[in-house]
Structures are given as C-alpha cells and as structure tokens.
C-alpha cells in the first residue's frame, strides 16, 4: 500500500512538473508581453526595452524557464504587476470563494442528483424515468455560460428574488452554484439510476428478498450501500471539474474566485498570477485524483493492489 501511494506521488510530481512547463511555454509563446501592457499605447521603444530588461523578459527563454522553476519550488511565483504584491498570495486570497462555490455545487449535485437517480431506477421505463433521463441530458448539453445568463435574467432581472452577482450575501451563492451543478447533477442521476438497476438484478438481492426481507430493507440496507461506492469515488473528480468549470461561471456571476482572476491575468499577461492560479488548479486536480484512488481501497475491500 505504501509503495503504491509512493509510486502515485512520484507520478503526480511528474504531472505537476509537466503542467508548470506547459503553462510557462504557452504564456510566453502567445504574442504580447507585460511590459507593453504596463506602459500602454504611448510607450517609446526605449522605455519598453528598459522595462523588459528590468522584468527579466529579454533573457533567453531557457534562462527564464530555469529561474522560474527555481522560484516555483519555493512557491514563489513572483510579484503580480497588475495587482501589486505576491502573486501566489493573491491567488490564495481568492481560493476560498472558489472552494465555497464548488463545495456548495457538490452538495446540490448530491442532494438533487442522487434521489432523482434512485427514484428513476425504481420506476424504470415510466414517465418519471424518462423525464429524469431527458432532463439530465438537456442539463449536460446546455452550455453553462448560457444557463447562467438565463438564470440571472429570470431570477434576478424578471422575478427579482435572487442576486445575480456576488454582493456579499449568502443568497448570491444559489444561482452560480446551481449553474455549476446542473450538468453534473444530471450525470449523477443517470449514474445512480444505472448503478441501482445493476445492483437490483444481482443475486444477493434475490437472496435477500427470498429470505423474506421487506423491500424497504433490501433497498435501503443492501442496494443503496452498494450504489454509494462508485458515487463517492467519482465525487472527487466532480469537485475537480467544478474548480475548472468555475472559470466560466465566475465570469458570468462576478464571483471573486480564482477562475475570474485567471482569465483576467492571462488577458493582461500577468504571468505570475496566471501561473500561480493554473498550477494551483493542477495540483488540486491531481491531488483529488490521488485521494480518490486511495479511497477506493477503503470503500471496497474487494479491490486489491493487483487489480489496480
């Protein structure tokens, strides 16, 4: 077990290193640099050159890359030219907002998606089953920026019952969290439905029924528990996706998280902040994956190292 975790950690380190490298290269290959954005449209070539020197942008890329790696190891991404101050601290400052949003969206996904899936499984082929099926497909197919704008239009502008932007009140969480949860909610409902159906057809259910257990006990005690295992393990991945999807949702709802910060920093060539944000998201995602794999052992004793 320890060997397995160590091996996965080693692989994760490689992945993170890859992410750092790709982000570094992509940001520098796209045209335009921070010096021109700082000095604006009235800068002279001499001023630009002087500032590039000062910022270390005129050094050859490999030199910049090695220096960058050295800094990243110490979690020092440098200063943000746009926001002033340490870039990593600036990103960490925005992290709670994104985590709150993602966490709440996860709760919504579970509380709505799971019961819907179970209900659909118990009524296979009936109206409610097809309804859940259609709705979940629709939810997954609709682009979330569009859903977000529509929700703002309906619930904020027309009905005026929920704020459409982050105004500091807890209600402001409802619309962005729902928009974020919608595609995963349908996905979870279908996952639960199919999983439950599969379990219901298994021998142990027949055995349980034949020994006279009530349908309620068969279902609540035996079937549901087995359905839960795959659900719990995918939730980690869903949370990772939430953080990635937050990039779009945060723009629509003016949510002050790392997603909106990242978009602005890329547009403004604020390398330090963009790198800190992307690397943080990558580490988070990879960490969650690792956690899920480890959790698997504990939740399902039938899985052994050989089967992984």
């Amino acid at each position, binding site marked *: 077990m320890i060997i397995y975790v160590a091996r996965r950690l080693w692989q994760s380190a490689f992945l993170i290193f890859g992410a750092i490298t790709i982000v570094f290269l992509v940001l520098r290959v796209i045209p335009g640099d921070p010096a021109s954005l700082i000095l604006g449209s009235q800068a002279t070539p001499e001023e630009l050159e002087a500032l590039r020197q000062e910022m270390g942008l005129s050094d050859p890329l490999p030199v910049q890359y090695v220096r960058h790696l050295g800094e990243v190891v110490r979690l020092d991404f440098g200063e943000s030219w746009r926001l002033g101050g340490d870039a990593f601290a600036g990103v960490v400052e925005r992290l709670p907002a994104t985590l709150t949003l993602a966490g709440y969206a996860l709760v919504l996904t579970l509380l709505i998606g799971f019961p819907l899936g179970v209900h659909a499984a118990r009524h296979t082929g009936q109206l409610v089953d097809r309804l859940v099926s259609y709705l979940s497909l629709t939810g997954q197919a609709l682009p979330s920026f569009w859903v977000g704008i529509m929700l703002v239009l309906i619930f904020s502008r027309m009905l005026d019952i929920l704020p459409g932007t982050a105004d500091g009140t807890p209600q402001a969480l409802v619309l962005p969290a729902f928009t974020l949860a919608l595609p995963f909610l349908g996905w979870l409902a279908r996952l639960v439905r199919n999983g439950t159906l599969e379990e219901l057809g298994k021998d142990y259910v027949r055995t349980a029924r034949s020994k006279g257990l*009530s349908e309620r006990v068969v279902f609540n005690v035996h079937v549901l528990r087995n359905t839960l295992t795959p659900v719990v393990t995918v939730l980690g991945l869903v949370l990772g996706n939430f953080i990635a999807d937050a990039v779009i949702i945060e723009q629509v709802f003016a949510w002050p998280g790392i997603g909106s910060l990242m978009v602005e920093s890329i547009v*403004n060539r604020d390398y330090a902040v963009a790198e800190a944000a992307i690397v943080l998201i990558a580490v988070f995602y990879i960490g969650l994956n690792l956690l899920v794999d480890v959790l698997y052992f504990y939740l399902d004793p039938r899985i052994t190292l050989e089967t992984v």
Partner: protein
Amino acid sequence: MVTTYNRRSFLKISSIGLASAYLAACSVGGGDRNAAEQALRAAFAQPINDLDPHGPSSVDESTLLAGRLIYDTLIRRNGDKLEPGVATSWEQTDPTTWVFTLRDDVTFHDGTPLTARDVKASLERVKEAGTAQSALWTSVSSVEATGDHALRITTEQPLGTMPVNLTLMFILPADKMDSEGFFRKPIGSGPFRVESFTPSDELELVAVDYWNGKPKLAKVTLPYIPETSSQITALRTGDLSILWPVPPDQLRELEGVDGIRLETVPSYVYYFNWFNCGREPFTDPRVRRAMWRAVDVAGIVKNLFGAGAEVMTAPVPSTVFGHAPQEPYAYDPDAAARELAEAGLGDGFRTSLMWFGDTGPLADGLAQAMISDWAKIGVTVEPQSLEKAEWLRRLNAKEFDMDLQTNTVTTGDADFTLGRLYDSEADRMGYRNPELDTILRQAHENSDRDRRSELYSRACKIIWEDAVGIFPAALISTYGLRDTIDGFEPAPSNQPDLRGVTLAT
C-alpha cells in the same frame, strides 16, 4: 426480475433529498438584503486592480477613480477650471520654477500631518516609477521642501502643463509609502479611507472627517462586475445604486425603468482611426482625406451609438481644454473616389484595419461599418480584430495600416494626447510635421491659458486637415442612478466626486 414497488419508501427518500436541497438553499439565504443596502454600492465598468497611484495602473481610469476618493492632490480640477487642493496658491516665479504654498491643516488617515516632504517624496516616486504617468514628469529636475508647507519644483524646460498635471499627482505619506503591502490598505488624506481591498474585485471605503467637507455617505463599496448584463441587472434590482458608464447599446434596458434615472456628460474618451502615415498609400494626404469622406461618420455614430456618443469636430473631445471646432468632412463617396483617382488609385486598393474588441463600446460595429463604407469606393479593408496584448505590440512597433482605438485625455488638457501622440519624435503613426512639432512644444511649455488655447486651435486644424486619422465619435458617459441617490454630479473623467452624494433609505 421481481420489482415490487414500495412507493412510500421511495417518495420518502426522494422527498428527504429534495427537502434537504431546499433547506440548504434557504439556510444560505439567512442574510438581510437591506443591511447591504445601507452603504452605497457603486460600480465602475472596469476593475480597480491596484491602489498604487504611481504604479503600472497610474493612468487607468479605475485607479484614478479610487485615487480621487482616497488621496489628495495639490490642485483639483472642477469643470474646466483648476482650483486649490492641498496647495492654497501657486506661482511661476520664472519659466522653470514653480512655488507652492500648502495648507497646514491636512492630515493623513492615520493622524500624521501632510507636509511638503510628503509631496516631494510622492512626486519623486512617480517620476522614477517608469510607468505611463512618469512621462508627464520627465522634465522635472528637482523638488524641494522649502518649509513644512512650502514647496519648490524646478524643471529643465518650461512646463506649462504643471498645474494640470498635478491634478493627477496623488500624495502619499513619505515614510510609509514604500513599506511592504502598503497598497493593500493604503493611507491617504482624501475624503475616504480604505476599509478593505481585494484587487479587481471590491474596494470598501469609509468616510473620514475630511478637511474639504466630510462626505455625507458613511460608507462606499465599489464592486467590480465583469459581465455587462449582470451590471444592468444589479442596478435594476437595486443591488447597485450607481453604475457607469452604461454602454450605448444597453441604454434601452434602463430607459424608463421605475426607480432608475440616467444622467449623461460628454466624456474625455473618444475614438480615432489612425492611418499609418509612413506606409503607402497613406503617405499621401489626399488618400487619407478620401478615406474620411468615404465614411458616413454622422450616420454611423447616430445609428450605432444613439445618445451614447457625439460626432467629433476636432481631434480631441469638446470637453477637453484646447478643443477648437473644425470644418466637418462631408460624406461624399463620389468625391472620395475622384480624389483616389487623382492620387493614382482609381482602381482602389487593399489595406487592413486593426483594433481590439474591448477598446471601447461597439468597437466591432464601428470597424465593420467603416469597412463596408470603404468597400463602396473600391477599397478592400481586411478586418484584424486582435487580442489587446498583440494589438499593443503591433501599435508600438507601428505594424499596422490603420488602427481603430479609443483614447482618453486623462488630464482633460490637449497636451496629454496631442502633445504626446503627434510629435515627430514620439513617432506614433509615421506622421511628421515640423510646424506641428513647434506648435505642440510651445503649447507644452507655455503657461498662459489664452496663448495655449490659440496654439492648440492651430494644432487641431493641422491634424484635422491633414487627416492623420479619422476622428469619428466622442463618447458620452451615461451614469445609471437609483432614485434614492441625490447630490450626484456626473464627471467627464469617469471619476465622480462622491462627497456630496446622499442615499435615501
């Protein structure tokens, strides 16, 4: 497969699930929305990234807006007049020396008095910062605090724009301004102090007992809302009390809405469409003028912007000092085609136009409208809609045929744009005219108002008649206000003074 349904148990499971979802939704809804409305929430369309008034964002409208509320300047602008700020009086004792007398009752938010040493340190800091505002101060050779409340500034060449430039020079406390993290919660001497600040998200301000009139509001919050439709919604629902500038194409979303009124003022922001005068065929002024005549400027501005912009009559907006109205170029495609033929381009030509989408409202529409007008006289223009960083790179490298962009006369004085952009040495778009250079330099150095005004009127005429660019539209700033707002004065600089504003509850 035997499936016996136990409806009750399933209804129970699902209803527990739904009920908990509902409860969760309600539990976060415990806050009191009215409590948030006690303070003024006002949103500017651009994010406040940095509160350092001398740093990389020093001429961003959003940083200037915050600076006006937090810091003081020696001199303030009021309409088209300059009036005393921290300086009670100033005098140009010889062409290169300016002497200022400072108020003795100004204190920073931490209680320490503001002295000439703070002004000296601030001016030296902005001069050395190497940012867009530093360019205003290159000719300053020394700043001396000759007493606690007396200051002398000497320059290498005469600097006639000294007083107007000083309206941008925010004063920071000398011994604190360089400390680590100062600009996360900076200390100024302005009407509001910073309560909290998250860059490009929200700035919270609290009123102080300001020497120049305590603000009537106790608290002001300036949130940034990136999405235009979300901004409009927030104003309509009362989540915001003030929103500006409202984009021209969104005006009808707010017109005639109960509880909202709109106030407008011509701004310092305008569009220009430069020709690269160093590139064929735009080296020929006849071609440039033909291009201008081919565009139905009045029609485009009216149809596209409506009440959101006015047709320009000079290379700077009408609100700017130095504006002198010129003869408009009448829309006449036939004359334009004839002029092209005279210049040897009777068969038309191919060229390109670059811009970036966020340069200003309706930039894409404006570019497309002009391109289709040019097509009518046989000029094929390739549209190049770029990302801002790439656009800037090409602009600075003069890699363009035509460039469409907005520009802001930040100081409200023609020197800020005409003096810096059209000088041969600055060489922004390949236009060289020694006569214009002389005029602009004289206007830059002179401090006599009437003389400067006359010089700029000559500069306007040359730039206009030589058609260095097309000057289509000056934007009108529209402020969307809730009816609960009183005492608000719309500002052409997009930096409203909030001291006199009250909020009815």
